[in-house]
């Protein structure tokens, strides 16, 4: 047994069975004033779940309305508010914080062998900023909502909309600072709190993903803050900034907005990529194929992601030269993503695959992300984009990546680390069923949207020509399955909290420092600070795949 094995055994067995970060203080105050990154992760988890269902309710309204070509339930104005709130809530209050603020907060210090993040009080402040922004947004919702689309384009948002634009903009402005705080915290943590022996190239890919995401959060979000502030100033103070009648340029708003909002999609997908790498390596019992390439791919995505925003503006009237440059760079950024898909596939090769629920989610991610990414490549081509801009093709594309991709990965990670976070095991049977239901429900919902978008159905419309109805009915029916797949985990995961079997320190037999401490971990993560002396993902010997045997070399056996 090496020194590290002994330490791991000590950490895992000495921790008293039921004393953990969960039992350390049971008052409301101990939760609301906690500086423990694991508790803050749970605070975030509860809040983003609430917002997920708020955004989901808006989606239910949308898909119900779209069953028939005529307006059945909602006026145009109300429908505008529905899809706007769906977008605003899902992007900023669910997807952007989802993996980083929940799994990232919980796992980052554990994975690097630290006992806390670099700035624990800032971590708590970030959650309160999230809640504050959320309250402004909920207030906006109760007062009647906002109808500008989640993109807040001027001059409609600043000069013509009759909805609560200021409140919504303020809500997003505030929650942006939560993002920045998390980003700053994670970057400092990874630089300065790694355990002894945990060099940069021994970091798990989830940590690298959190690091890359944090760079994007810290550098992109301030520009969003300014874009929103300018809208608030123009609308609130009545002064001309983007107003075209006073020589202002609405495209300037779009530049400022998309400078953040394109990198924002990388904030949403990079963590998912980190989760998927962890799950696939463990459940295939394989080292990651091309670890270094995976690291560089994520960093390149994080940087290049800042240079491609104009592909959201091909039909806005921006200069053709700019469109060509943005288009070219958008093609380039497909390459590192493709490298990652290739490497995940390479990791599976000769693996001993376990089709557990997390693995099903992870495999679903690879397929759905690939499809979403390929359609993104199509959209990067200016002529194609001009044809399908503002149609359901674009809607399908980004839902494939954000829902098929990021949400699948979030669910996968939630299941994979559930034993570690809660100390309980959930029902694999129900979980696998939910994972498969999600995959089928998702495709049934969103694949028809590619078709109907290509055929010309505009997005953000609640009425459409009757020829499109068959695709919309398919999509809305699929959404029912998808909704069931989202609700099921609430039931069986919730059940596991009360009646689930208690988890051991390492139920998946995974590598990674988080598995070397008890489930759930003690308040300070490790009883003794760990030391690292091995590469990550040491699932098998370097030279061979696990279970590799050349039977022809074995002694011959008589009989069976």
């Amino acid at each position, binding site marked *: 047994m090496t020194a590290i094995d002994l330490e791991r055994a000590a950490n895992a067995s000495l921790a008293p069975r039921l004393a953990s970060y969960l039992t350390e203080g049971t008052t409301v105050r101990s939760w609301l004033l906690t500086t423990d990154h694991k508790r803050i992760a749970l605070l975030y988890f509860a809040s983003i779940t609430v917002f997920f269902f708020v955004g989901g309710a808006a989606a239910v309204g949308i898909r119900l309305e779209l069953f028939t070509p005529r307006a059945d339930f909602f006026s145009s104005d109300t429908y505008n508010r529905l899809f706007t709130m769906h977008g605003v809530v899902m992007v900023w209050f669910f997807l952007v914080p989802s993996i980083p603020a929940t799994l990232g907060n919980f796992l980052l210090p554990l994975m690097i062998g630290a006992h*806390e993040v670099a700035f624990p009080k800032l971590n708590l402040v970030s959650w309160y900023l999230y809640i504050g922004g959320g309250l402004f947004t909920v207030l906006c919702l109760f007062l009647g909502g906002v109808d500008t689309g989640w993109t807040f384009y001027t001059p409609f948002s600043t000069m013509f909309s009759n909805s609560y634009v200021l409140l919504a903009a303020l809500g997003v402005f505030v929650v942006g600072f939560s993002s920045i705080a998390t980003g700053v915290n994670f*970057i*400092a943590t990874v630089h300065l709190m790694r355990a002894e022996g945990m060099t940069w190239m021994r970091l798990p890919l989830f940590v690298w993903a959190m690091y890359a995401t944090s760079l994007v959060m810290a*550098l992109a979000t301030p*520009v969003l803050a*300014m*874009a929103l502030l300018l809208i608030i100033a123009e609308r609130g103070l009545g*002064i*001309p*900034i983007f107003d075209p009648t006073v020589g202002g340029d609405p495209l300037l708003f779009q530049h400022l907005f998309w400078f953040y909002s394109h990198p924002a999609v990388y904030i949403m997908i990079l963590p998912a990529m980190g989760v998927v790498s962890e799950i696939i390596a463990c459940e295939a019992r394989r080292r990651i194929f091309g670890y270094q390439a995976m690291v560089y791919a994520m960093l390149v995505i994080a940087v290049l992601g800042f240079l491609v925003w104009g592909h959201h503006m091909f039909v806005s009237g921006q200069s053709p030269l700019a469109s060509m440059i943005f288009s070219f760079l958008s093609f380039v950024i497909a390459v590192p993503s493709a490298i990652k898909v290739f490497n995940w596939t390479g990791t599976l090769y000769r693996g001993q695959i376990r089709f557990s629920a997390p693995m099903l989610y992870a495999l679903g991610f690879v397929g759905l992300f690939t499809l979403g990414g390929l359609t993104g490549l199509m959209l990067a081509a200016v002529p194609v984009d001009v044809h399908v801009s503002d149609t359901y093709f674009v809607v399908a594309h980004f839902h494939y990546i954000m829902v098929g991709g990021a949400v699948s990965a979030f669910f996968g990670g939630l299941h994979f680390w559930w034993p570690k976070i809660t100390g309980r095991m959930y029902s694999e049977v129900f979980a696998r069923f939910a994972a498969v239901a999600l995959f089928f429900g998702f495709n049934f919902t969103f694949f028809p949207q590619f078709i109907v978008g290509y055929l010309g159905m505009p997005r953000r419309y609640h009425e459409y020509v009757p020829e499109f109805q068959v695709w919309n009915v398919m999509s809305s029916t699929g959404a029912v399955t998808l909704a069931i797949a989202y609700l099921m985990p609430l039931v069986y995961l919730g059940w596991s909290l009360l009646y689930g079997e208690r988890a051991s320190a390492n139920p998946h037999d995974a590598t990674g420092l988080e598995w070397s401490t008890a489930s759930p971990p003690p308040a300070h993560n490790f009883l003794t600070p760990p030391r690292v002396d091995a590469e990550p993902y040491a699932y098998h010997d370097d030279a061979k795949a696990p279970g590799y045997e050349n039977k022809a070399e074995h002694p011959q056996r008589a009989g069976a």
Partner: protein
Amino acid sequence: MSRPAAILNAPWDDQARQREAMRFGVWLFLAGEILFFGGLLLVYAVARYVDPEGSLAGARETDAAYGFANTIILLTSSCAMTIAERAAKQGLERVASAGLWIAFTLGAAFLAVKGFEYRQDLQENLFPSGRAFRLDQAGAARFWAFYWVATLVHMAHLIAGLGLIGRLIALGRLERGVGRRWMAVEVTSFYWHFVDAIWIILFPLLYLAGKGG
């Protein structure tokens, strides 16, 4: 040169690492602020690029006397903050305290001067909302919209900075000096210099454009 032992915050158990973390953290924040104000400066750059005459027509109406006075005030405040920071690191409590007080007072003076300037701007109908605005050119209205947004946002940052300096002064009185908190003084000082730096950039853009022959 006796650097006082600093107060250690969780999760650090080592002074050098805590200092590294605090400096890194504040610079990460400042990098974000560079992008925040950068977005604002982009609005100015685009406006002046697209309509130089209108922008300069607007800029001609700013009162450079107020602007210059405020610049001197803020630069001196920054200098006082630097003296306070260096004194704190050396354990020179009285000099540090004096420096903090001077920095705070000059920062407050900036606010007062700005207040008088705003009053004058409003009296001269230089708020570009509705028909009361004095100037005709579209570019001038957009310049003045930028002026109000930029100076108000800068002021908000300055007020936050005064809060940080005030906190140090309060801690200094409670703990008999800020020497043990020299890392916090350093970090506050960086933020204050950033507020100063933003004004250094805004001053020529707002007050020196379009002036003279």
